[in-house]
């Protein structure tokens, strides 16, 4: 195990010292030296995630597909673009540049007042002595925040106008998780980073939580009819559980997408009454021709179109009734 870790660290150090560090040094950006090193790890983790998705998860989709191959397969391509842009750090870097000064300003202002973000360990000292327990507790808290943010994405009309892009995909696969508007990504990142600061998630823990969480979410979008068994499906979100959340609404089930919100731990849906375990197969997408129009568009066209939808949702005079 130590050998594997050493290989990983050596690769990260080599990449940083060969490509990133000299650029930062050359342009007088030494204050970003450590963050730059962490960014290299983020990209490396992204490559690992892409490999796990493209090789591991796709194996199950190919072997046991829920929805058979059709002309809609071409709709998947744009989701792959989203995944590459996200996992390789291109969009996260842009989001980081926008959010970092704001997060920094908020944190520093609060700390200048004398308020230090408390580590949970101060309340639960035993956590400090158990790294695994500490990680799990922070993971659960992080997921709790993500659950309520997800509900807000559906409950607030202006936020739904952005988030509907994620739901518009009729051909849901392991690539769909990253299909989000950049403003949607930005808002979620900002909220979760601030939340993590408040509860005291360590930078190292945050990266791991993000990596594991996003892998679970990629898998939960897979085009397979799989779960983890009766108990497992109540402990971890899987494809069967999450597919219902993407189900196309019908006159009989108008609010079907207002269920199974949890990103990783279904306990939140169970506790707050939004869990549905019925095992039915439903088509995915959004029953709104405007939103459904996202299908077939490329990345830029989707971003521009959805931004327009977002603006209209904010300006009452421009709002269209059909946006859910």
């Amino acid at each position, binding site marked *: 195990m130590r050998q594997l870790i*050493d290989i990983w660290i050596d690769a990260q*150090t080599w990449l940083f010292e060969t490509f990133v560090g000299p650029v930062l*040094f050359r342009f007088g950006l*030494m204050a970003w030296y450590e963050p730059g*090193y962490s960014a290299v790890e983020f990209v490396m983790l992204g490559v690992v995630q892409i490999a796990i998705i493209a090789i591991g998860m796709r194996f199950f989709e190919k072997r046991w597909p829920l929805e058979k191959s059709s002309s809609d397969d071409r709709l998947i391509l744009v989701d792959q673009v989203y995944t590459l842009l996200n996992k390789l750090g291109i969009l996260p870097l842009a989001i980081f540049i926008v959010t970092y000064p704001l997060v920094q300003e908020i944190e520093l202002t609060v700390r*200048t007042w004398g308020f*230090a*973000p408390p580590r949970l360990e101060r309340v639960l000292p035993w956590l400090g*002595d158990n790294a695994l327990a500490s990680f799990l507790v922070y993971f659960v808290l992080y997921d709790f925040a993500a659950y309520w943010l997800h509900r807000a994405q559906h409950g607030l009309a202006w936020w739904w106008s952005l988030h509907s892009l994620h739901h518009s995909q009729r051909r849901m696969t392991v690539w769909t998780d990253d299909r989000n508007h950049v403003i949607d990504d930005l808002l979620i990142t900002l909220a979760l980073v601030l939340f993590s600061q408040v509860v005291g998630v360590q930078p190292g823990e945050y990266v791991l939580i993000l990596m594991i969480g996003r892998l679970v979410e990629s898998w939960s979008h897979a085009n397979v009819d799989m779960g983890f068994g009766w108990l497992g499906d109540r402990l971890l979100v899987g494809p069967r559980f999450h597919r219902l959340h993407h189900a196309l609404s019908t006159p009989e089930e108008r609010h079907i997408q207002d269920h199974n919100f949890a990103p990783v731990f279904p306990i939140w849906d169970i506790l707050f009454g939004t869990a549905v375990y019925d095992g039915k197969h439903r088509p995915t997408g959004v029953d709104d021709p405007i939103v459904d129009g996202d299908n077939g568009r490329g990345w830029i066209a989707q971003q521009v179109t959805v931004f327009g939808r977002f603006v209209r949702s904010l300006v009452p005079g421009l709002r269209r009734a059909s946006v859910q």
Partner: protein
Amino acid sequence: MKKMAFAAVALALGMSGPAWADAVLVLNSDEASFSILTRSGRTELARLPVGREPHHLLVTPDGKEVLVGSTVTNELLVLDAKTGERRRVVRDIIDPYHLGFSPNGKWFVTAAYRLDHVDIYRGEDFKLAGRIFIDGLPSHMAFDAESKTVFVTLQQTGRLVAFDLQTQAIKWNVKVGEAPAGVVMLPDNKRLLVALTGADGLVVVDPKDGSTTGTLQTGKGAHNFFPKGDGRHYFLGNRVEGTVSLIDTQDMKVVGSIRVPGGPDCMDITPDGKELWVTQRFLRRIAVVDIEQMKMVASIPVGKSPHGVLMLKSGATGSAVAPVRAASTAGDQK
């Protein structure tokens, strides 16, 4: 609970008295822990939790306690220097990134790197005497021998600032070069050396008025100093180049260079003066350098982004060499 855990670890490791004196503490800044290693065994024995983003540590002037700065939780963890036992936590020390005691122990100073201020506390009880807000990422510090002035580098604005400890007034504030980090007062009390992390060497500064009186090329990313112990030679880590230079401060020239890969950062020397231990931030290791051979002879795995390092035995005798230790062991930067 933590106290019990610490005691259990110490007991299991047989680390009390002389055994603890053989220990080396390394702060893992990215995982909120510190590693305990043995000098003789060159292995990590335990990893214990500490606040959040710990960067630097130092021994109190009386040699009885070790202070670990936890920057994000605004507190100092206080350990018994002899037994390693967790004694207490000092709260409301805002962003204690870099720490230092004045040579007479009267003042305790912290540089709040992220919050852009320098705090001057009374050394005896950590009561805040003054807080000076100053833009530019205050990172390292050094004191004059009379304990009247503290000199602080501002990494972002490229400046070195002198503060009067008694009045907390700024004496002078000068531009010294790109990204100044480590700063050390030489034993003659007439020259300050400032490492320029954004350049490839150091500048010599007159502590009276901040004027630059000399320069020396060492390596890219010159970062922080540590005294060899003879009053004449100093080690200087070059983070970008991955080397540690040995500088003769009398002739002001580089007399040796050691390859230490992985962003060499904080340093400390074994009590016998034979080994220099250097944290390798990126490699998650600490390097052991044989000073006579001027060669890295070992590299020991520790936690993520290891930063501050402290030899407990040498630290416990820190009061005798406080003027240099306050500015070197105690300090380093991101």
